[in-house]
């Protein structure tokens, strides 16, 4: 039964009307009349809880950082020592391998030049993954037959054989 129907039942009922003055206010339902009291208790409990949390918040953070600071400090010290050791080692190595390092550098430069010379014919950037996928699908369908025409417009007569290394699009068309 809902509160509305309960209220209606009580207000329609004589008993309900008689009990109403006893409650000291206009509320028709007993249950709702208790709410102020419950509210007060609830508010008190909430306030206590908040105070408790605040207190805990003030006390605990002080305790925890104190511990973690100590831990961090020792860890940091260890790290600093380790880094200092590494730097010292590297410096020592650089000192002894200095000449070798310079020699390696010049070798590397020569290697690079050689690579560029080898691949000089394909200056186009490497195909992307998508292009590689597409190229795999575009299987060779046989060598393109040579162009057999003698009359040309916009150009001297062209032969496919002379166009190796180029991508060629041959389009059959008619203007009409």
């Amino acid at each position, binding site marked *: 039964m809902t509160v509305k129907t309960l209220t209606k039942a009580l207000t329609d009922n004589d008993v309900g009307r008689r009990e109403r003055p006893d409650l000291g206010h206009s509320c028709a339902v007993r249950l709702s009349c208790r709410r102020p009291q419950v509210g007060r208790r609830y508010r008190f409990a909430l306030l206590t809880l908040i105070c408790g949390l605040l207190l805990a918040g003030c006390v605990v953070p002080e305790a925890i950082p104190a511990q973690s600071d100590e831990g961090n400090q020792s860890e940091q010290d260890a790290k600093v020592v380790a880094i200092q050791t590494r730097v010292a080692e590297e410096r020592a190595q650089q000192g002894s391998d200095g000449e070798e390092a310079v020699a390696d550098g010049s070798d590397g430069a020569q290697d690079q030049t050689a690579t560029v010379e080898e691949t000089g014919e394909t200056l186009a950037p490497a195909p992307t993954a998508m292009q590689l996928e597409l190229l795999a699908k575009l299987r060779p369908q046989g060598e*393109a037959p040579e162009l057999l025409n003698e009359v040309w417009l*916009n*150009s001297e007569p062209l032969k496919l054989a002379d166009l*190796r*290394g180029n991508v*060629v*699009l041959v389009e059959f068309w008619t203007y009409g």
Partner: protein
Amino acid sequence: MREWHQKYADDGFVIIGVHTPEFRHERDVNNVENSLVRLDIDFAVAIDNDWKTWRSYNNRYWPAMYFIDKTGQIRYLKIGEGQYAYSESVIQALLAEPYTAN
């Protein structure tokens, strides 16, 4: 087509229009020349009035595009209009394909 020619000519892309006439008036080279001006076509056009190249390709359609890779192999055949975006991606991929001259 015209756009591709302008866009990729410097990357090693060559367009060749093979003009194979369907009707008698299309055999007149002057008419073809006028149409090139009218359509603003500046790529190479072969006049295939005797259908030599058409027959050697065993072609049957207008328009038909044969995409030929750097080694001279036909890699893609596009018949008819449309799907220009895909055709352009084919050109880009073929241009990116590594090639070493024999």
